[in-house]
């Protein structure tokens, strides 16, 4: 019984972790907490939905053992790219002009506004009712003693791990990754080293928006697509990013897994009513012992 809760926690934690990566990258490179991060998750799912219905591919038969058809895999990279583009565009029209005039708090408040605008734009364009990528029923299959998972939910964990590994390689092995880590540590010195700060900011928005979109599409497939799907996750995203050590991409992902597990295990251990508070109890305990989070660097 507990094993099933652990498995469910890992699946939802992987999604929270993917979403929290964008939050932590934005904080590290741009220096502010972006409250519109949840909306990138929502928009990722709706971009995929629009592409499926727009191309008429949404009615393709499911691809066993999954409950979705091959077109979803086709539109997934496009939804990720479009959401990355949306994040860059939002930076261009809103955050970049404010960077020159407002401090970090001004950017945070602006992100609140952007969050409301983006969420309501979704309602305006797609309506308030929940939508689904597929009406096919997903059957859970036994994967370990006492644990049953649908193939879709297993794919969530596999894709999340793959995305995380790719991001880790990018941050540690590529020129862009080095530039991002350098800019997060000291943007003025990064410029002296020849790093184009605007280019690094753009890349951070692309990656953060794209990772959230991946989480959004996967969440949309395993649960449902609705205008508040990202906003509902926002507090968990913040808990994961802070828990992992703000600024650490790997930390945000591990933080997401801890948040997912805490929320899932709180149901049998504390009662379902305490589920929303569980992540914060863990956050409280970790920050008492390690104020910089699990993987955060001491300032």
């Amino acid at each position, binding site marked *: 019984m507990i094993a099933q809760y652990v498995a469910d926690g890992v699946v939802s934690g992987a999604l929270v972790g993917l979403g929290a990566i964008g939050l932590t990258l934005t904080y590290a490179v741009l220096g502010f907490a972006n409250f519109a991060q949840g909306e990138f998750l929502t928009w990722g799912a709706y971009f995929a939905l629009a592409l499926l219905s727009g191309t008429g591919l949404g009615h393709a038969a499911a691809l066993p053992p999954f409950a979705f058809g091959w077109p979803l895999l086709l539109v997934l990279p496009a939804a990720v790219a479009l959401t990355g583009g949306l994040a860059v565009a939002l930076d261009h029209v809103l955050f970049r002009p404010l960077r020159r005039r407002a401090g970090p708090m001004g950017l945070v408040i602006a992100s609140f506004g952007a969050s409301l605008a983006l969420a309501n734009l979704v309602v305006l364009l797609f309506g308030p009712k929940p939508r689904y990528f597929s009406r096919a029923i997903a059957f859970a299959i036994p994967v370990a003693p006492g644990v049953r998972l649908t193939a879709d939910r297993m794919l969530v964990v596999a894709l999340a791990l793959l995305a995380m590994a790719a991001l880790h390689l990018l941050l540690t092995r590529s*020129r862009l990754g*080095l*530039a991002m*880590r*350098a800019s997060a*540590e*000291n943007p*003025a*010195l*990064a*410029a*002296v*080293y*020849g*790093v*184009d*700060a605007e280019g690094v900011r753009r890349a951070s928005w692309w990656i953060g928006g794209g990772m959230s979109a991946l989480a959004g599409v996967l969440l949309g497939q395993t649960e449902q697509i609705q205008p508040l799907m990202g906003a509902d996750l926002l507090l968990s995203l913040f808990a994961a990013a802070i828990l992992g050590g703000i600024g650490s991409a790997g930390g945000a992902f591990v933080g997401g897994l801890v948040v997912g597990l805490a929320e899932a295990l709180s149901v049998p251990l504390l009662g379902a009513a305490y589920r929303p508070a569980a992540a914060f109890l863990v956050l409280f305990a970790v920050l008492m012992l390690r104020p910089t989070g699990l993987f955060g*660097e001491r300032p």
Partner: protein
Amino acid sequence: MSVLLAVSGLVAGYEPGLPILRGVSLTLGEGGIVALIGPNGAGKSTLIKAIAGQVPRFAGAVSLAGRDLAGTPTHRLGALGLGYVPQVANVFARLTVAENLVLAAAALPGPARRAAVAAQYAAFPDLASRARLPAGRLSGGQRQMLALARALLASPRVLLLDEPSAGLAPAVVSTVFARLRAIAAGGVAILLVEQNVGAALALATRALVLVGGRIAREDAAAALAADPGLADLFLGRAA
């Protein structure tokens, strides 16, 4: 002597209307070390930062080998031949020594990048043996060497150094200064801010005395070192 760096009538500071530099002009030729000395608060570091594009310039011009640098962002200056080593936080403490160097050489194509980094390891053997160490774990002298090696990777024609001896033990300072002499002998023009006036004048060929945001005197370093009126100049009295 061909002019590599020319600054004319430079007015610069952190806040508009509150200039720290009030019309500074100077020129730097090939292969010389010019020391910038002056009392605390005279604007020495501000001058270096303003040339490097780190402090807003309100008036005047800065040109590098005849090219006006107005509007050139800081990250393009290295490629144009202007190296700058800040006084503090001049390396990325969380990146390894190797990552610091690779990042600085990132604009070069693969084989040229590897050759450039290898050349710096040959010049600074202490760095080669610590390549995988985070730069934050280097000693003060090793950090200064890494900062120098990083700046040299882009083959600068002009090198701006903000107090390279700050916080270093005397023995380490002589190693750093010996390195600077070798760099200058290779044809790089060096503009150096130093608090340690004696050491700076012993190292430099020429010196500028900056007082109250203006050049109060320019002379051969040896002549200034021998001038008993230098202290008066520092105190704002006419020498």
